[in-house]
Each structure stands twice: as structure tokens, then as C-alpha cells.
């Protein structure tokens, strides 16, 4: 029983210290900030790797972005030992909003079915991260799923497959304001689209799966050294996309303006204390312990 898995990833600003650069006003300096495979995208790759180790999945990783996004694909390959890498790159894709991005990803994933998987049902599971760290909308995944007709499951923290019946059982973390968090267990026939919760971690409990994981990790290293031989590039022509449907033309939304959020009204009047004044700090220590009921009157 074969299993075909696609992973959608994104090249994002590297938020780690030393690589990220902020403007004086505290906003991201995009020109100075380095890029890498997004943290949430890495989680999606881990989920795909789990499918490779446990279910022998064939993995394709895809991204839409400028040519330099191939870095993200090679990083993804090093995590999940991907069998093919797909880069959707075209000037007219630039500045797309989520709906126009989903249009490209939909066509890309449909192409994977046509080109690579002649003898089977196409892509069984698509994985994506929770959301991009820069855009932070979390909409591209569900919209791609919807356009493809795949049921979408977000915030997934665990999943298992029954390949014989082609059914997935998954757990998702539902976080709602004003309620306890809920863990929901769901069963669905394949194909599905799964967006991983940031807390997802695959676990390889059996000895044989750990051995397999080690072998695939080594394979991945070899592949990545030569990742371009796994890389396929697509533009709007090869994806048979109508230029009107992608990029800015195909985007319902625009960014109208960006402004500083005005400072809120002063809610409290702070007493300002010099951090070098030991006596004052001592008073604060007392204040904390009193309020906390550890000292004196509570």
C-alpha cells in the first residue's frame, strides 16, 4: 500500500538572535534579516518524516517564493528525506495574498499527482505548518486544502494511519478563549490536509522505527548534498495558471496602510525607581512578599 505525502513549506525571516534585525521603532528590518526554513514548516517536515519511517511514504516538498526559496526546500529535505522538491517561482506570483497563494499551491499539488504518481491515488496527505512566522495568518493551508477538496485539520498534535482502510486518526489541540483547552480525536478517510500544531513531536518508540529513522536521516544527508538534482521549478505556464488568478491580480486583499499603534492611554501611574538603589529594591521585595502573603499582613 503506497502512501504519497506532500509538505508545503515557507522561507521565512530567521527570528533567532544575531540573524534578525529590528528597526529603531521595534519593527522587523526585512532587508537585514536572514531567511531560513520557517520554524512551523520544520514541524510539518517532522510529521512527513514520521510518515516515511512508519508508513514508507514518498515525500514531495513544495514552496512558492523567489528562487532563493530553494534553501527552504533543501533544509526541508534534510529533515524529512524528501524524494522530490518543488519550487513554484514566477515574478507574477509575488505579493500574493493567501487566496492567490493557495491557487498556486493547488495547481502545484495537482501536478504532483499527474507527474509522479501514475500508479496510485495521488497525494494522500498534505502537511503544513501552523502559520508563517512573518505573515501569521494561518490561512494559506486551509485555503489550499479547500481548493483541492481535502478536509482540513489544524492544530494537529498526533496522527496515525490505517493504510489498509486508508483512514487517519488524529488528535488536535483546540484552544478557545474562556474555556479549557480541548484535545479532540478525529477519524477521517484519506486524503486529508493536516496543519501541525507547533507542539507536535514525532516519537519513534520501537527499535525498528528508530533504526529506520537513523537510516533515513543518513539518506537525507546524502540527498541534500546534491539537492538540486531533486529540485523541479515551475512557473505559471508550467502550472497552467491564469495570470489573473495569481499574485496581486488574484488577491482579494491589499495592504492599505501600515502605521504605529498609538500608545494606549495611561492606565496606571508608575512610581519610577532607580534599579541601583538597594533600599528601594528592598522595599519592593517587602511589598511583593506582603502582597503574596509570605510576610506580614497579607
Amino acid at each position, binding site marked *: 500500500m503506497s502512501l504519497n505525502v506532500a509538505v508545503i513549506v515557507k522561507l521565512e525571516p530567521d527570528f533567532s538572535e544575531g540573524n534578525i534585525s529590528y528597526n529603531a521603532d521595534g519593527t522587523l528590518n526585512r532587508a537585514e534579516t536572514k531567511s531560513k526554513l520557517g520554524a512551523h514548516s520544520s514541524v510539518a517536515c517532522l510529521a512527513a518524516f514520521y510518515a516515511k519511517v512508519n508508513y514508507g511514504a514518498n515525500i514531495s516538498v513544495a514552496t512558492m517564493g523567489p528562487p532563493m526559496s530553494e534553501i527552504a526546500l533543501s533544509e526541508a529535505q534534510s529533515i524529512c528525506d524528501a524524494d522530490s522538491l518543488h519550487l513554484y517561482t514566477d515574478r507574477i506570483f509575488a505579493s500574493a495574498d493567501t487566496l492567490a497563494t493557495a491557487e498556486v499551491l493547488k495547481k502545484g499539488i495537482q501536478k504532483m499527482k499527474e507527474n509522479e504518481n501514475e500508479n496510485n491515488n495521488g497525494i494522500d496527505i498534505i502537511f503544513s505548518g501552523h502559520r508563517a512566522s512573518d505573515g501569521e495568518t494561518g490561512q494559506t493551508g486551509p485555503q489550499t486544502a479547500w481548493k483541492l477538496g481535502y478536509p482540513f485539520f489544524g492544530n494537529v498534535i498526533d496522527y496515525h494511519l490505517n493504510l489498509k482502510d486508508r483512514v487517519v486518526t488524529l488528535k488536535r489541540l483546540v484552544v*478557545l478563549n474562556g*474555556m479549557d483547552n480541548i484535545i479532540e480525536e478525529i477519524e477521517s478517510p484519506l486524503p486529508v490536509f493536516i496543519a501541525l500544531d507547533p507542539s507536535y513531536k514525532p516519537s519513534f518508540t520501537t527499535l525498528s522505527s528508530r533504526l529506520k529513522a537513523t537510516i533515513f536521516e543518513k539518506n537525507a544527508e546524502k540527498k541534500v548534498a546534491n539537492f538540486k538534482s531533486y529540485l523541479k521549478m515551475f512557473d505559471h505556464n508550467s502550472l497552467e495558471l491564469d495570470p489573473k488568478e495569481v499574485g496581486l491580480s488574484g488577491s482579494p486583499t491589499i495592504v492599505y496602510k501600515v502605521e504605529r499603534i498609538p500608545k494606549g492611554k495611561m492606565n496606571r501611574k508608575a512610581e519610577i525607581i532607580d534599579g541601583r538603589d538597594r533600599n528601594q529594591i528592598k522595599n*519592593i521585595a517587602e511589598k511583593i512578599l506582603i502582597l503574596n502573603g509570605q510576610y506580614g499582613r497579607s
Partner: protein
Amino acid sequence: MIENKKLSDLEDGNNSNSYHHMLVIIEVVDGVVLPVNYEMLGEARRLMDFFNKQYNSNEKVIAVVLGQNIKDLCNELINYGADVVVYADDPNLRYMVNQTSTKVISSIAMDKDIISKISPDFVNHYKKPRYMFFAADSIGRHLSATVLAELDSGLASDVNKLEISDLEIKHQHKTKGNALKYGKVLEMYRPDFSGFLWTTILCLDNKNPEIRRDFHPQACSIIPGAFAPLEPDPKRKGQLIEFTPKFDKKDLKIKVLNRSIDKDKIDFDSFKIVISFGKGIKEFPEDNIKLIETLSKLTGAEIGISLPLSKKIFKLDEKINSKYMIPGRVIGTSGRKITPKIYIAIGISGAIQHIEGMKEAEFVIAINTDENAPIINECDIFIKGKMEDVLPVLIEEIKRIISPLEVQAKRK
């Protein structure tokens, strides 16, 4: 804003007769309407009251509710500001499964029978809703994306301010570079990840003849806690409309097998003190975290973080990362709203989304080097200084007070 123009001169969009009303998608979980829904209704009411007055119109706030045995909740939604409640009551809608919910909500949004019951005048031209609100939570974020993909329009996520205006837009693609009027535009403000910038997103029809295309509804997901609900008015009158959903057989194969409360959630509510840290730990992150841990042990505090830290921005030991740099510890609109007796913000500048999470704390102490940081307006005591200098002294002084107490306790 366009001044000195008659509003009736303004075009809404390509098909200004085809879009009407504001749909508010309500989430019912285990028989409970989540608080964010009342907040959304309050804001929808405010906007549509303005809209109807401004445009001499009569468009409605329509609450859409899916679930099982939910009919009794509908009147409550009217009390909170809805003009109409459209409800679909079906055992298959007991849980909000994205696949089925998306189809039912989209059907309701396009249903002419419903429109004929609400506003017969609109029915001939009606295509889609004008505006749509969803909650920005684990249900609404995904649902908003899939519903808008189905309705083929756009949305802004995680919005905390909204206005309706008439705008003149000049855009390379939307208007082919010409300045064109757009009426009744929903200006959707979303704070960016830094919390210091507001990006205004618009969802606009393409008026450029080469790429002409309609993009309605204008939709968004709304951050819980961003808007105030109305005082419920039991005398408010409204219309209840039942919608009978149809289901695809294959969608009903998606089954919720089990639901349980997540026990791993950090229980901030049972702590009197919460100590949070932010980007200010940057010079010596690991040492500073150790100091914060010591302070929290001495005072029995739980530890929170600001949003940027959950992106693991520092290269740290994996144990520290997985313990602290996680979304579950984030205080703010993207995380938790807490109300401890004492809140200590260490190296946190105080972006608006953080403030929203801690402003109800009884007593707030900030430790920060920058007197211009917004946190200064949200704290009772502002200790100006480096945490590397302040924390050791604070810890020492606390120990000095506590240890004799402990000795006394032991003697008893």
C-alpha cells in the same frame, strides 16, 4: 476618507446591489456560546448602526449558529445585538468539524430563501454577504479561511479594530493605477507580530477591466478580548430563521471520536504571582532565565513570556526552549489573559497585545532599561535598570526577609 462627495455617488463595488448584511459566525462549544461571539456581535452592531445611518440603509447583523440543540441560545444572541439569527440544528453539527461547518455556513451565506425572509427587497440581486466576522481562535481561524475560499473572497486575520469608510483607491492592479472610489469599505486593522504596527487590510473588488473580479464578502477573524460586548437587552426584538442543512455522505465519514480537557495547559489562574520575561533577556538569556527561575521559586510564581520569545529567538539549550519558549506560556492576545495579584514584567517593552493579557493584574512591577517603553504606563512600579543588576539584589533582599521567617517556622 473622501470629503465633500455625496455618498450616494459612490460605488460600493462592481455589483453594488449584490451584497448585503453582516454575517457573524457564532461558535458554540459544548452548549456554550464563547465570550468572543458576544464581543463580535457588539462590534457588528456598532458598525451596522453607523452603516445604516450613514447610508440611509437597513442592512442587518445576522448571527449564524450551527450545532445540536442550540435553539434556546438564539434569543440570547438577539439580546446581544443580532437582528436575525439563522440556525442549523442537526446532530451532525454537534462539533464544529471544519469540512461540514464550512459547507453549511457557505450555503447559508448564499441562500436566497433566507434573504427573502429577512429583506425581500434585496432578494433579486443578492449574491453574497457584504461583511463577515469570525473568531480568531482554533475554530474560527481555519473556518474563516475555508469559508472565504469557498465564497472566493478575501479576509484579514486577527483583527482588533474596524471601521467602515468610503475611500479613494489608486492601485496598480485593483484600479489599473487610476484613482477610483470604493464605498462601504471595511478597514480591518491587525497588529503585526511585533505588536507595534497596525496593518490595515482591505478586501476590494478588482475594478481594473483586465482583471475584473468581485471580492465580497469583506471578512475577518477577530481577536478575543479586542471588542466590548453590549449590555444584553432582553427586550430587543429579532428574527429567528431555521436552516435545514444538507450533507455530503463522504463528509459524514469524518468522525469526532473523543474529546477531553488538555491537562498540560499551564494553570496561571491558580498562581498569585506571575513573572514574565521578554526580549530584554537577550544579553545573557540563560543566566537571566536562571535568575527568573530563582525569583519564581522564592515567591511561588508561575512563569510567562512575551509573544516574540515563543518563536525561539535565542539559541538556547533545548531543555530551556521546550520548557519556556512555547505558545502555552505567552501572555497576551495571542496567548493567555491572566489576572494575578502580582505581575512582574521583566525586559518586556509592553506591546499592545501583551498589555491586553496582563492589564487586569492587581499590582504590576516592570523591570526595564527603557523609560520610554509602553509598559511604563501599565505598571505600578517601574524599576529602571538592567535585569542582570536588579534581579540579584531583589532575590537577595527577598531571601533576607524569608529565611528568618523559615527559621522561625521550623522552631515552632
